[in-house]
């Protein structure tokens, strides 16, 4: 198996907030074109890691490289699509206006047609002109994903994109992720939903700011002799393997 240059690399990444250690000496390499899942309970450091990779946080020590650049680096901001845990949409504006705004600040050349294509993709064409605050939770999630995709980013950082949405919508999201992977887009996704982990090409198990283990779901299960990723996680956590 060939090893293309990693699209994301972290070495000795440590982040402390006051006395609290959010990330501890974390090393990571993600190959392009994959969906990489960051799996871990709340407070394990998933969001901190993603925010460092987006360029919103400086690590206390260690380094992170994204698309070959040491972060934070504004020059690659237009190549990253970022979806936060919150919907992060302007509630008073319509879905179309939100998308148009993000298209404009990312300088998307084919602004209008891109917005229309995205509305189609996330199936919000009918509600395109409704103010966001009138939408259901699932619709807001879809609109939020569309905003993260507006500038054709080759790298997507999604912080718990499927939290609190129904299984049907979750399936639709995963279909999108698959087709994005096929277009060569790398997706980093954080989750604490174990059955989602199975769908990622590779997984990083995070606990207490450390990377416990890394590998495909099958590898992780094989290494621990577990039947499920959840079981594998618990065994790694207990220090069994």
């Amino acid at each position, binding site marked *: 198996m060939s090893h293309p240059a990693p699209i994301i690399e972290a070495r000795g990444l440590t982040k402390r907030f006051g006395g609290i250690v959010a990330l501890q000496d974390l090393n990571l390499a993600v190959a392009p074109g994959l969906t990489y899942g960051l799996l871990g309970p709340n407070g394990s450091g998933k969001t901190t890691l993603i925010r460092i990779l987006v360029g*919103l*946080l400086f690590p206390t020590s260690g380094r992170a490289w994204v698309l070959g650049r040491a972060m934070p680096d*504004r020059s690659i901001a237009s190549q990253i699509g*970022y979806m*936060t845990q919150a919907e*992060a949409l*302007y*509630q008073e504006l319509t879905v179309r206006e939100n998308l148009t705004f993000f298209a404009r600040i990312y300088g998307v050349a084919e602004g209008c047609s891109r917005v229309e294509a995205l509305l189609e993709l996330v199936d919000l064409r009918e509600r395109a002109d409704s*103010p966001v605050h009138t939408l259901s939770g699932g619709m807001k999630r879809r609109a939020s994903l569309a905003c993260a995709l507006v500038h054709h980013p080759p790298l997507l950082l999604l912080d718990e994109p499927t939290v609190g949405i129904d299984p049907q919508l979750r399936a639709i999201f995963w279909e999108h992720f698959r087709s994005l992977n096929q277009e060569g887009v790398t997706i980093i996704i954080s989750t604490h939903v174990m059955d989602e982990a199975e769908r990622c090409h590779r997984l990083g198990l995070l606990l207490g700011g450390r990377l416990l283990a890394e590998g495909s779901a099958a590898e992780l299960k094989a290494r621990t002799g577990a039947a499920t990723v959840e079981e594998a996680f618990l065994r790694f956590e207990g220090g069994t393997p």
Partner: protein
Amino acid sequence: MSGRRILALAGRIILQFRRDRRTLALMVVVPILVLTLLAALFRMESPDIKLAVVNEDRAPESAVLGSPALASRIIAALEATGDFAVTEIRNSQVDSYLAQGKADAVLIFPENYTRRDLLGRREKVDLILEGSNPGDNAKIVQKLSTAFPHALLSFTRPVGGDLNLENNGTFDLLVQYYYGGDQFDDLDYFAPAFIPFFVFFFIFILTSVSFLRERSQGTLERILASPLSRAEIFLGYMLGFSFFAGLQSLIIVLFTTGVLQIHYNGNIGVIFLITLLLTIGAVNLGIFLSTFARNELQVVQFIPLVTVPQGLLSGLIWAVKDMPEALQLLAGLLPMTYANEALREVMIKGLGLDAPLVARDIMVLLVFAALMVALGVATLRRQAS
């Protein structure tokens, strides 16, 4: 730095406010309501002072003057000023008049008032004040002490045979105004300071709450992760909020000058410029301070912190030059002090940008606005670390 991105940001803010009809309406209605109330209060006629008079003065009939008792004539003169509603009572009624609120003050003329006066000695007149409101006390004493000498002067008896009492001993003043004029009232003096106060107040609330909301709903995080630089974000916000700040100051200026008929001698363009500079400072102060608030309640608590000292110290009500030195120093740090001074120079004295004081004040406001922009950009940068 991309102008297109800045405009995209400013355009979005304007669009958001256009959607938020209620906020938009409040921005217009609230200052108009408050200014109308203030105008009504400043222009109200103060009610007559209820003055009870006990007149025990028994004047001797004088063949030469043929005048009635001096006390009666003073009482008549006081009534003629129009400031007093005079009731004559007996000495035994004094307590009940004061206790029942039928009199704000009682004047008691002693028995030998005229007689002593004719002998060249002036007897003291007793004044009993109702006394529960120090403000009223001062007003009554002040009105009486201006009316009294005037009343007395007009009765100064001639040494010779001139019996024309009215014009004797008084002096005439021909009053002219260097600035302002006799049509200027309290509101004309206070309005130039209320304009910046309200503009500052409303714009500060508007920006600090909007910016806080941007943070709490997560959109700021998304913007910070975009190619927008900190300076672009700041300029975009400033432009967007300043659009409404400018609109609001225009409405306030036009309302006070047009509808409330506040007299102004200066150029309305200069008035608007001063207000706009102050609002740019307010926009940025709002953004800056909102980063220290975790929720909207905390932002609300910043409002008195920012506006009350400025309201008290900027010369809005008490002149800065009359303040103790320490407070004057403090006042010198507040942007509104300069806005008030400049607006009074322009609106009352009719001065323009060529007046050194106005030019200096505008420079100070410019520096304040620039300082706030720098502070805001610095806090945005800090947020990303």
